């Protein structure tokens, strides 16, 4: 069975390389080893979203039972999104679980993930904290997501106000990423974030 998996990935790999999405730099796929079991994906943040202009890297592991079971995909790049864990990068997307179909390919998976960045599903969250913010404070969520895209995904939009708050907490001796997570979690309220970090 490993044979059919490797053969198919070879074909899919060629398909992705030739696809017009690669030509337009929307998606990218790289091999990590010669056995076609581990790949690195890359998707561009879709326009008109807080992720616009960012580049998000993905870790793709092909199971031996591929394509009868879905590939294991997670974000390497840290991202603030209701359906993606801000801690582990784990993705909550139905086609990577029970809605997988054997005719889907790595190309369609990458495009689906891009679509997920455009249209979050806060009612089926992976990260409950992000999902709550998405539902209750949409503008704070957008700012936070933009900030994370700028910091971790080479995004173009700086959020100077948020950066100042992060450096303020850093000045208090907290590690930068932890400070950012605490502030993001506490809707950028410095007092609450400090309490959160201490507790």
């Amino acid at each position, binding site marked *: 069975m490993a044979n059919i998996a490797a053969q198919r990935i070879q074909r*899919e790999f060629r398909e992705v390389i030739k696809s017009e999405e690669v030509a337009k730099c929307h998606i990218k796929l790289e091999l990590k080893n010669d056995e076609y079991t581990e790949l690195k994906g890359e998707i561009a943040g879709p326009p008109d979203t807080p992720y616009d202009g960012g580049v998000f890297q993905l870790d793709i592991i092909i199971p031996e039972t591929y394509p009868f079971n879905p590939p294991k995909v997670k974000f390497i790049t840290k991202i603030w999104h209701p359906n993606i864990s801000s801690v582990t990068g784990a993705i909550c997307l139905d086609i990577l679980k*029970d809605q997988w179909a054997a005719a889907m390919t790595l190309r369609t998976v990458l495009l689906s993930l891009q679509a997920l960045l455009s249209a979050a599903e806060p009612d089926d969250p992976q990260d409950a904290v992000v999902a709550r913010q998405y539902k209750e404070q949409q503008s704070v969520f957008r700012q936070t997501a933009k900030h994370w895209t700028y910091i971790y995904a080479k995004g173009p939009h700086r959020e100077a106000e948020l950066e100042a708050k992060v450096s303020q907490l850093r000045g208090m001796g907290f590690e930068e990423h932890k400070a950012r997570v605490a502030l993001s979690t506490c809707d950028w309220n410095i007092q609450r974030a400090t309490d959160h970090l201490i507790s």
Partner: protein
Amino acid sequence: MYRQKLYASLKQLFKKNTMAEAAPSSSGAPSSSPGASNSIPDEETNGTYDCNICLDIAKDTVVTFCGHLFCWPCLHQWLSTRPDRQMCPVCKAGISKEKVIPIYGRGSTDNKDPREKLPPRPSAQRSEPENNSSFGNFNMGNLQFSFGIGAFPFTFFASNFNLGDARPGNPSAGTQQHQEERVLSQIFLFVAMFFAIWLIIA
């Protein structure tokens, strides 16, 4: 191997490509064979009859009612991977083993497939022109009725009175196996008697 030859001859027919002569000798290893370099342009031009699962030219071809083409081994594995959710891998329409149509191309009958261990393709459905279903049903019921009564005494006698005994010899008396078999046969006799009495009363 056969498939590759077929593929090669198709290539000759459609593309009039002299390179195809190299393909029949290929050993099936795609990386080193001379046919491998040909396979990339082939995919571009000729993907219409590729299996939607292995993305290769379909073998033991079947088509679903929703019109999607697969190798039968691929589709069978897909269906057996998720027995609770039987859906088309392309369009997610409901499908089942009974609801796929095999495709018989010319020359497919003498195709000696080495993978006979795989479950055979479902057979095509061919309905007879005249309708005689009521007669068939009657026959069926009659057969079942006579079997139920007729078989009982034979099995009863055969199992309890050891008529035409062709089984291995009884273990010698006194051993544990002998004891166990005696107990077992008594239990079976009791069950059989009970069943007989129950039949008579009912």
